């Protein structure tokens, strides 16, 4: 038993960092450093908002990457449902991506709240964008709770896949909420669809680099997290080996 578990450990320590993750990690570090420098020193402050506008370089990328994370969760879930063998890798990516997405969405709320305190004079308002964002966060916390309900791996995957596919439908609601109601929150200025971007060049560049940086961070986190989840599943399976042997000796003892 001990030899078996030590070999599994070895296999996985070997897999923890791969060239891909190293590359993505390096890209994340570089672009995040660029955002910090660009966001704090290079870009101008806003006419109306002053230096507060710099929060944008965190606020907007985290929001978009959280969307991305939830979409990845949905796609991975769909892949799990459709794949004939029900490869558990898809399920782990779905779970990891939702976890990271929840963290990023929380960062959006936090940064938005701070920003709002400065510009609107309040951390929170009952604005459709803000409220639907909060709902989206809660939905994915619920998703994670469903993943924690227990049962077999397959059941966990199946149940959470359904929830993920339904939950992702909320993203358009959040995105279009500013159009559907009168809103305090900024209307879409980058992703407005008319292709007309109303922003200073360096600001836009920094924002885009921010998006790349957060995306790389997201990818790096998801890759590592799903490996950790894979290891957890493997540990579970080796624990099952041990438990099976225990029961076998119990039955031999009773015979």
């Amino acid at each position, binding site marked *: 038993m001990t030899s078996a578990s030590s070999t599994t450990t070895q296999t996985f320590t070997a897999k923890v960092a791969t060239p891909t993750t190293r590359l993505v990690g390096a890209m994340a570090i570089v672009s995040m450093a660029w955002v910090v420098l660009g966001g704090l020193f290079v870009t101008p402050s806003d006419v109306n908002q002053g230096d507060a506008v710099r929060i944008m370089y965190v606020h907007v990328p985290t929001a978009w990457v959280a969307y991305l994370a939830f979409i990845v969760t949905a796609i991975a879930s769909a892949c799990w449902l459709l794949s004939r063998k029900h490869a558990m890798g898809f399920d782990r990516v779905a779970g990891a991506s939702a976890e990271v997405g929840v963290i990023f969405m929380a960062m959006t709320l936090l940064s938005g709240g701070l920003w709002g305190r400065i510009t609107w004079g309040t951390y929170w308002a009952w604005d459709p964008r803000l409220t639907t964002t909060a709902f989206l966060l809660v939905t994915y916390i619920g998703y994670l709770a469903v993943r924690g309900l227990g049962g077999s791996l397959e059941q966990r995957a199946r149940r959470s896949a359904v929830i993920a596919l339904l939950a992702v439908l909320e993203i358009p609601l959040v995105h279009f909420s500013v159009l559907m109601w009168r809103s305090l929150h900024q209307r879409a200025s980058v992703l407005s669809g008319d292709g007309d971007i109303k922003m200073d060049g360096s600001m836009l560049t920094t924002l885009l680099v921010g998006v790349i940086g957060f995306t790389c961070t997201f990818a790096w986190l998801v890759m590592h997290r799903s490996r950790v989840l894979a290891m957890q599943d493997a540990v579970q399976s080796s624990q*099952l080996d041990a438990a099976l042997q225990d029961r*076998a000796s119990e039955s031999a003892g009773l015979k």
Partner: protein
Amino acid sequence: MSLVVDFRDAVVVFNGFPALAGATFQVTRGEVVLLQGPNGAGKTTLLRACAGLLPVVRGSANVLGIDLCVDRQSVRARVGLLGHANGLFADLTIRENILFWAQVIGASTDEVTATMHRMGIDGRIADEKVSLLSAGQKRRCALACLVVRRAELWLLDEPHAGLDAKGRDEIDAIIREASSFGATVLIASHELERTKGLATRSVSVVAGQVQ
């Protein structure tokens, strides 16, 4: 000789505990098999796995020719399970409970009446809410629901529990009859004296394995 149940090294896990720890177990059509074994051995788990209710995570499990590792749904309409719980709707009467299953399955009302008479739950209590019945009366009702379903594989978990002497005789007769119609019956029970005569074969379940 067709195998109705074919488990090979089947493992069923609850939160990391292997309640079925590599069970190998075959049953051919028409057999009446008694499962015996100490408390917590895994009898209930084995029956529920046969009904497609529990995922088999290792080994292979075939019931009525269907591989349970692939499809746990389609076997269900063909098996009938009487568990420790009765599975009755507490707010409906005995008659309504049995009619529910009969309607779902397409059995006739006559059949319902006949089954109720047979199980001794006609008369006053037939239109009494199930929650108001005695333990044995509830068990009889659960049995009646099972009888109208006419399953190919009967999984009975301590069917005698709570039944009086007459009820016990009746259930023995039902099991014999089902088996004579070609059904296969698995019975988990601790009342060995009573079940031994009934079963064509008896196996013991110990610590999650079938011996």
